[in-house]
């Protein structure tokens, strides 16, 4: 808290796209209220702060820190620890900080492969000397250092203790505003905060709960890629063979994607009490696959199922698009797996 008695707010990004920052501004005029309530003490995206500023703060100086982005390298982790130290309430803001999100898709391959893709094997790259970033380079002026690039992308709570999770890629403005109000209420009027560790700004059940489309019993013969089919706008997309992560994804977004005919991508992460969103969705989908029955010969049965399963182009990419870092296995086995 600053002299003027205003609670302090910080927002910082790890490995992220910046969308989360935008989403904060996306709460429209409410941003002014935020500015009234809070003193912003660290927010590199909108105002000039330096690490040393943060380092200079006493512990718990920051009342609320919205940390977005995943932990991709040592700098991200360092900052996570630093901000934890300096913050009363640390919020994992957005899917990256919450469960790895898009950056964590690189857990589906190896560090080497990733760097190779970025610095060598890429049509838009011209790097004949095959120069790779080095963590330490000796120059006449002295040693230059870069953060070390991690093998496995992690979520915020995998490197430090987190108070709340605010899912979404990015989180939806109304949800953000609601959460900020609760926190502000607690800080200024001493209202009660939700129990530590809770997921805030989202529902408890799955997206289907909010989804307007009509749902029937499900048997899915095969899946279609979005370009292969023109969905009926009123019927559950899954039933039409369009992959939709809705059933395994936490509600809170208002089922935006399905209601416009695009299958849910699963950005709000697993529902309450589910550990591995991907595995759960995989299990659900496989269960309702309309392929083979008990009367068939074993090999015929297996063939049919193989065929149906193969209509899902990239299972891990589909089921784990946002939750890789928080999946049970967290990453692929070293070596293979450029899936």
């Amino acid at each position, binding site marked *: 808290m600053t002299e003027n008695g205003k609670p302090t707010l910080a927002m910082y990004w790890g490995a992220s796209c910046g969308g989360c920052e935008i989403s904060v501004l996306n709460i429209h005029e409410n941003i002014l209220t935020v500015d009234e309530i809070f003193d912003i003490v660290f927010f590199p995206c909108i105002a000039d702060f330096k690490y040393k500023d943060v380092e200079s703060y006493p512990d718990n100086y920051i009342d609320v820190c919205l940390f977005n982005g995943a932990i991709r390298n040592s700098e991200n982790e360092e900052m996570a620890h630093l901000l934890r130290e300096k913050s009363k309430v640390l919020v994992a803001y957005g899917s990256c900080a919450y469960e790895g999100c898009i950056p964590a898709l690189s857990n589906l391959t190896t560090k080497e492969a990733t760097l190779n893709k970025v610095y060598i094997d890429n049509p838009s790259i011209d790097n004949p000397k095959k120069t790779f970033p080095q963590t330490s380079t000796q120059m006449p002026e002295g040693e230059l250092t870069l953060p070390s690039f991690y093998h496995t992308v992690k979520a915020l709570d995998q490197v430090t203790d987190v108070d709340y999770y605010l899912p979404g890629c990015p989180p939806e403005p109304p949800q953000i505003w609601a959460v900020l109000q609760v926190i502000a209420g607690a800080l200024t009027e001493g209202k009660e905060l939700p129990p530590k560790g809770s997921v805030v700004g989202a529902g*408890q*059940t*799955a*997206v*289907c*709960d909010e989804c307007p489309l009509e*749902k*029937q*019993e*499900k*048997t899915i013969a095969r899946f279609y890629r979005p370009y292969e089919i023109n969905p009926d706008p009123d019927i*559950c997309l899954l039933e039409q063979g369009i992959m939709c992560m*809705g*059933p*395994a994804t936490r*509600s809170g977004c208002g089922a935006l994607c399905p209601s416009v005919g695009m299958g849910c991508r699963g950005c709000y992460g*697993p*529902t*309450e*009490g*589910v*550990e591995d969103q991907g595995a*759960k*969705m995989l*299990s*659900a989908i496989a*269960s*309702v696959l309309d392929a083979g029955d*008990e009367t068939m010969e074993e090999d015929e049965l297996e063939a049919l199922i193989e065929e149906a399963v193969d209509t899902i182009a990239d299972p891990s990419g589909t089921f784990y698009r946002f939750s890789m870092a928080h999946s049970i296995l967290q990453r692929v086995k070293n070596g293979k797996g450029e899936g």
Partner: protein
Amino acid sequence: MEEKKEKTMQKEKVGVYICHCGTNIAGTIDVEEVKNWAAKNPNVEVSRDYEFMCSNTGQELIENDIKEKGLTRIVVASCSPHMHEKTFRNATERGGLNPFLFEMANIREHGSWATNDKEAATQKAKSLVNGAIERVVHHEPLEKIPVEINPNTLIVGGGIAGITAALELANAGNHVYLVEREGTIGGHMAQLDKTFPTLDCSACILTPKMVDVGQHDNITLLTYSEVEKVDGYIGNFEITVRKKARCVIEDLCTACGICEEKCPAQVVDEGYGAGLGYRKAIYRAFPQAVPGYPVLDKENCIYFQTGKCRACEKFCPTDAIDFEQEDEMLNFNVGNIIVATGYDLFDPRRIPQYGYGRLENVFTSLEFERMVNASGPTGGHIVLRDGETKPEKVAIVHCVGSRDQNYNEYCSKVCCMYSLKFAHLVHEHLPETEVFNFYIDMRTPGKGYEEFYHRLLKEDTHFIRGRVAEITDADHQPGEEGKLIVQVENTLLGKQQRIPVDMVILSAGIEAREDAAQVANLFKMGCDYDGFYNERHPKLAPVATMTDGVFIAGACQGPKDIPETVAQGGAAASQIASLIGQGTMMMEPVRASIREEDCSGCRICNNLCPYNAIEYDEEKEVSKVITALCQGCGTCVAACPSGAIDGAHFTNLQVMSELQGLLWDVQPAPEKVTA
């Protein structure tokens, strides 16, 4: 969720009991070591080992510890839960705990008996015990679910097993639906001539019972019928039966037999006649058939094949013939089911070197039964295929298709005895004729059986110990011309012998019915490798099956002789009678349930349930489980994408905890699990 959290918060007091099972476990597993190691687990209050945990003293150990040490959870490491889970659940209950707060670690069947490596066995035992401890901590008290028992019973198969069971239940005042595939009840027993070892006439003891069934007020007899569909669960099965068109109007038919007499179509009687005799296209299997009215066999009926004839119709005094008759579908409900579908005789054509089908004077045991039967095609005379010549030498070959990995590995159990019976019957009918019995081992376990063997020894039967290698008509040496030569090693002499005979009887073994697998499916039973139906427990539950309310009796469960078959029929009947007596039955509470507040109504689970136990509530837009229909398989639990379904006693939390317990020695620093 919330309350579950609290549960796991407060520390449980677990009692661990390691059983020696004499040396069965202690011989391979260091029980002492496991006990002490388990004691170190923070959740464990008491850890003991004992000679025999299933003994009264063993069970009392548990009861007292619960009372004195205030245990809240029990783990017993001993045999398979399929042996003693009930025992220890009861002990737990007597101690004052809910029986489901108990978990069993199977360190005998899966441990000490499966390896000789003491070290490995002990390590494995630790894992299994640890898994049980970590699991039991998360167990929840469950209450059994009561189900009403419909007092009617379905019995499938009208052989001696089905007949016995039907009469038992009916006489006790319960209604029975007896469904038989053939036109008459009686089964294989009706085909037999005499029964070993007493030699009383099979028909004479069977037909009275058949008549009782036919006339019983409490028995609905459905012959020439097959069960098409079985829905529901114990206490309330919904049955659909197809009553095949026999082209005879039962109410009008007086069973006078004129149609049969007038029918011009001669057909080889492959069914009841075992292929040795002929019958008509409209026929009764035999004069004492129950019910008495005939069946018209369309494949062989001249009218159905050529459109002409109708002789039976012309001559029927009561106009009971109806060519247009169609299959009928009957629906009814029952509380329990007995499957008593019997057996098929092994087909000796599968053993070419025995020549059946090629060499005309090679007969099957069933053919011979018909032959010696006074009502059979030869009027009870033992003759060669030509219908007149009396054999001077008869060979009886044991173990045809049995005790042979190329066919059936098991012993068919009855062949030795009926082969002895055959030998005796030949002696009786043709005193001059020599009889040779070729056997591997003479198996005569049973009351009066060995004595019967001795009797045959006295009758100067030639007993040659040796499995017949081949039967041929290719003669090598003088004396073999025009004979069937049985080539065998006489293992008692250690010499190869070629024995010329006139007639060979193949004592074919007993096989599961051809369609056993489909029938098992229909009633949701298990089949063993040979196609016989699986009993619930090989020793202690021989007529129950894995499916509550479905029982088995007779040879469909495995080779049996008549006394055993009758005993099983009775046993199944009395088990059902006691269920009917209770009126309600307590079902295991291992069932699924959906947490409404967590269900998003995605409807993934809706048609996963094989018992249609999941329904969708259009109002609340959530799915629900109909507890009584649920059998607790947990498929829906595994499928629910938002983890909103709990499988009682097999929750994610419980299984995951067990899993982590099992992996105590290889996993990273212990983690907490989320349900």
